[in-house]
């Protein structure tokens, strides 16, 4: 009994500590200052400031973030999903090599990826910041798409595809009518992952955008504000709060849905094994 209470207390403590900083951000976004103090009492000033007095640069960086995330995650999803089908059908040896290289951007530390891409773009004299950023983002997003489509392909019974061919479907048609719908859940979750990772990225964006390009995403603009004296204006806390609520909400929604689905699947399996 004591043990149970201690265990619950410990888990609760860890959960509380994980959430404390981000809850503080939301609480103090109503303080009217960028620091964690309530000198002026409860106020919406920071929110008003965000929508009336925030610099244009903030909105530009938001637009850049979204454009880069949309373009690179759509491209990564297309390249990755098609590639997964191809990799799945490769011979074991070449398949293993390709899968290992696919793993590289995931296991590699971000800073190494970032400087290697920076050197690469500098060597090839690719100057346009958007081109650099989109190519860079596709590079680290695509492996996640491949990894999320692959399990669906492995679960798929190859007989289904062959049955479609036997019933007179052309390979292309069988592909579109059978394989694509089957892997679609994997494609969609790969897309969601690519989109979030791209939105969230800071290190690779910061190093590959080019120092003098003047193009900023939300995270790099935040970083430069953090580093300039007086750059942390009160409107940043509302920005953080909105991001926190949005991110937590979306991730929770996606996971609760997949969790429910999994639960249903497990129940079915249990019935079967009985």
């Amino acid at each position, binding site marked *: 009994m004591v043990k149970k209470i201690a265990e619950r207390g410990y888990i609760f403590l860890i959960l509380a500590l994980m959430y404390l900083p981000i809850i503080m951000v939301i609480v103090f976004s109503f303080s009217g200052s960028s620091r964690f103090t309530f000198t002026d009492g409860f106020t919406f000033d920071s929110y008003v400031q965000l929508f009336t007095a925030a610099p244009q640069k903030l909105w530009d960086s938001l637009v850049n973030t979204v454009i880069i995330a949309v373009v690179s995650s759509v491209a990564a999803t297309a390249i990755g999903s098609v590639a997964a089908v191809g990799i799945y059908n490769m011979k074991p040896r070449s398949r293993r090599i390709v899968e290992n290289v696919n793993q590289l951007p995931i296991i590699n530390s971000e800073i190494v990826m970032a400087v290697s891409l920076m050197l690469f773009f500098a060597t090839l004299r690719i100057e346009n910041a958007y081109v650099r950023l989109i190519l860079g983002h596709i590079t680290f997003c695509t492996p996640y798409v491949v990894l999320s489509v692959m399990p669906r392909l492995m679960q798929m019974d190859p007989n289904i595809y062959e049955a479609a061919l036997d019933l007179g479907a052309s390979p292309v048609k069988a592909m579109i009518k059978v394989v694509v719908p089957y892997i679609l859940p994997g494609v969609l979750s790969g897309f969601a992952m690519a989109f979030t990772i791209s939105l969230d990225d800071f*290190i690779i964006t910061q190093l590959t955008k080019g120092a003098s390009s003047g193009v900023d995403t939300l995270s790099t603009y935040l970083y430069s504000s953090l580093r300039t004296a007086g750059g942390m204006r009160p409107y940043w806390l509302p920005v953080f709060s909105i991001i926190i609520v949005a991110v937590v909400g979306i991730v929770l929604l996606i996971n609760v849905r997949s969790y429910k689905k999994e639960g249903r699947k497990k129940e079915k399996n249990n019935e079967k094994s009985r």
Partner: protein
Amino acid sequence: MKAKEFFGKGISKIKNFRLTRRVFAYPYVLFMLAFVVAPLIILLVNAFLDTEGGFTFDNFKSFFTDDVSLRVLGMSLAVGVITTVLCLVIGYPVAYILSKWSSGSIIVLLIILPMWVNFLIRTYALKSIFDSLDVTLGIGTVIVGMVYNFIPYMIMPLHTTISNIDPSYAEAAKDLGCNSVQTFLRSTLPLSIPGILSGVTMVFIPTISAFAISGMLSNNTVLMFGDSINLRFTHQLYGTGSVMSLIMLAFVLILNFFMNRANKGEAPRNVW
């Protein structure tokens, strides 16, 4: 006639489509060669180039003889080890307790959820908490920040591994006369080593290569190896910067090698 032949060839190609579905992978293979492999080769080449573009070992020499660089590396490794140990000590009980709960995986999800918020925001929040508590920023706050940022990477693989341990091992140990401590030490703990290794790798690597976190949490008095690499490149010192990146890459590859070897023995889970 020729057109017909050509057409026929095309058709037979399409008929062989199933066999050649692997061509779907080729665009991505080319893409990876261009944007993953080639940049790393350029990095390798740059490590051996002097400022005039000639071949040299000086970059290695200047890194390994420079006290400041070596001290940053040593400091990063120390912070990395302390952070990893703290994550393991704090995270293992979490994963262990949650593996026994039916609601365990939901709670793991809740624990890792804040990780999806950008690390700059979380680090700023942590720094503001330290500021309002009048905690002096320094190596201690850096370590707290690293643990806060990376502990989800420890809990996740540990929870997966521990949850997948067949409970009959622990039962067998108990039947053979082990008390609960012995059961844990002799059965659960050894069986969770693959998870421990994954967690260690996933915490240690991002900690030593961290960028921006330690600067924010120490008023730029503590630098991690990642910050140091970035500084080289912003000061146009491509040669030593490349050498340091290669050292970082070596850490990544070595740790992942051991991690994969430990995880290989793991049988495919729950096939039946």
